[in-house]
């Protein structure tokens, strides 16, 4: 199944010629870093949820962001996607300054995210959820014409549904799905079109051990050019699917390093790993 996902992602996205050329142009422009945050601070009133965050992520890099509750991990994601713009600092996506872009402009440039609590469209079918995700990053968002039999995006959506094991329920309304299925759909929505960088916010939350194994399979089998940042409390998941780790604490970056270094770091163990298991 993981092999199938790779296959789908590799062959499906470049169906829309306009989008393909945009993706190519941008990837040429931004040869340096996929994501570059400089001094990003986010205030909620007097509370600093993020303070002076500076991170550089290479294209294709996979990184975990760890930290206790309230460390600012999800706020970091919200700043990167533009859900909450940063109070100060700059964010560059493949070299382009996107600090003041609305979320949809960032998404159209190849950024994707999933949500900690599934953010789906409960009134629509599984197939329509994924179809919307495919449509959102291509042209014809306002089209009044129904998709025909050979609609490329409809096929792309069908392949994506199949890749996350939801073909059997693709005509069911999302409200009727089990939790694990909703989490799978959540990932499918983030992989539509031609993603270049994905933010996964606790994708393993509430999954059974079997489902976790499948999730790891999906993450490790993503095409090499797709980088991601993953927030995950489950170390078994987090440290197996990344090559670098950023530890956050109280809205600041606490430590950066390779998974083994972080795992064996006494300060980290005291602060997070030890404290978490008390």
């Amino acid at each position, binding site marked *: *199944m993981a092999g199938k996902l790779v296959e789908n992602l590799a062959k499906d996205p470049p169906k829309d010629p306009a989008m393909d050329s945009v993706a190519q142009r941008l990837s040429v422009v931004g040869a340096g870093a996929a994501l570059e945050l400089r001094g990003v601070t986010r205030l909620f009133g007097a509370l600093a949820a993020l303070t002076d965050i500076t991170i550089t992520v290479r294209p294709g890099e996979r990184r975990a962001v760890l930290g206790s509750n309230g460390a600012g991990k999800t706020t970091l994601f919200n700043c990167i*996607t533009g*859900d909450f713009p940063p109070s100060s600092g700059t964010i560059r996506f493949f070299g382009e300054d996107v600090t003041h872009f*609305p*979320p*949809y402009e960032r*998404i*159209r440039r190849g950024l*994707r*995210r999933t*949500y900690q609590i599934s*953010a*789906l*469209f*409960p*009134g*629509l*079918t599984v*197939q*329509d*959820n994924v*179809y*919307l*995700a495919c*449509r*959102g*990053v291509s042209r*014809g*968002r*306002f*089209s*009044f*014409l*129904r*998709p025909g039999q050979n609609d490329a995006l409809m096929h792309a959506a069908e392949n994506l549904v199949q890749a996350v*094991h*939801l*073909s*059997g*329920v*693709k*005509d069911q309304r999302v409200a009727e799905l089990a939790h*694990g*299925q909703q989490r799978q759909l959540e990932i499918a*929505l983030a992989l*539509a*079109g031609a993603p270049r960088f994905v933010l996964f916010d606790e994708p393993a939350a509430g999954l*059974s051990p*079997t*489902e976790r194994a*499948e999730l790891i399979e999906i993450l490790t089998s993503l095409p090499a050019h797709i980088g991601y940042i993953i927030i995950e409390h489950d170390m078994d998941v987090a440290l197996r699917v990344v090559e670098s780790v950023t530890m956050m604490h109280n809205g600041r970056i606490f430590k950066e390093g390779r998974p083994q270094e972080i795992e064996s770091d006494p300060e980290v163990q005291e602060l997070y790993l030890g404290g978490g298991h008390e």
Partner: protein
Amino acid sequence: MSLAHDTRVTVRPTAAVQRSRLRGWPEIDNPAAWAVAAILLIMPLIANGFFLIEIFATTLILGLMALSLMFLAGYGGMVSLMQLTIAGFSAYMVAVFGASGNANISLGWPWWLAVPMALALATIFGTLGGALAVRTEGIYTIMITLAIGAAFYYFTNQNWAIFNGHTGINTVATPHFWGVNWRADIPFYYIVLAVAALCYFAVDYISRAPFGLALQGVRDNPRRMAALGFNVNAHRVAAYAFASFVAALAGVLQVWNYRQISPGSVSVGACIDILIIAVVGGITRPIGPFIGALIFVLLRTFALDFLVKLGLDGNRFRLLIGLGFLAIVFWSSDGVIGLWQSWRRRQRSGAASSSGRHGREAGRESGQGSTQGSRHG
């Protein structure tokens, strides 16, 4: 895993059939829909002029206005109380640009110029109102659109230069061409029926097109829509533009129907009537507003006689509507359609349990089985 794959393959044809039916016209294999269509088409043979115009044409016109609200509220999650105001604006524009008894106000343009002008202006009016309203959510949308409706009502009352104050504009000219008086009962009924059918099918069609699906996505989760690449506010404003056009069409038909337009037709009470019609009928499907309008018109027309017979004040027909409204909202979150659907479901499940499962349900069962298998296997 391989077992799960095999089961899924056997399920797929069933699912494909279901989807093609959903994507196409569900009405095509529904004999009841054909019967209703046939009855509506031959209505002039059955009904006299009173029923044709006062009941059915009026129902279809009010249904059109409620349809524009249903499109916004049912698909977009935006409850707009200004749909009647947009229709009223369109009606006023037909009277102002066309010919009427108030020669000092009306410009006397032929209908084929006045009507497109009215439609365009009313659509712009509604779109601008929508652009204001989309900055808010929920109850604030209701308040802003209600404020626009109330402001327009008082403005028409006080403005004499264009809207002729509280007397309004009377004896509005109606189209005559090809030797036909199109306001005569039977031709007018067919015009109204044609416009209503066109809008009904347009709304039904768009609900499955990318624009309509995206609108439903905006209703369910606007933030996620933005995270999928959609400009949510642009989508909402576009929905207002489309709904305004439908309401504007209804306004043209309404002014032709009554041949006059005055502030009384655009009062706040009338704005709320449209909401009641849509909610009573049901706002999840485009047929709902028309059912709601039929109930409303029948009550408005006959409740008076009924109440007088009981020795009550005939003007209390609104009491009946209000009680009916309460009952429907209490028992069904989706109006009359919701009641009908839950009744059908109960009937079907009763039949299924007595005669065993038929193919479609069995197929869905195995579909569920396969995903469970694939998750645990």
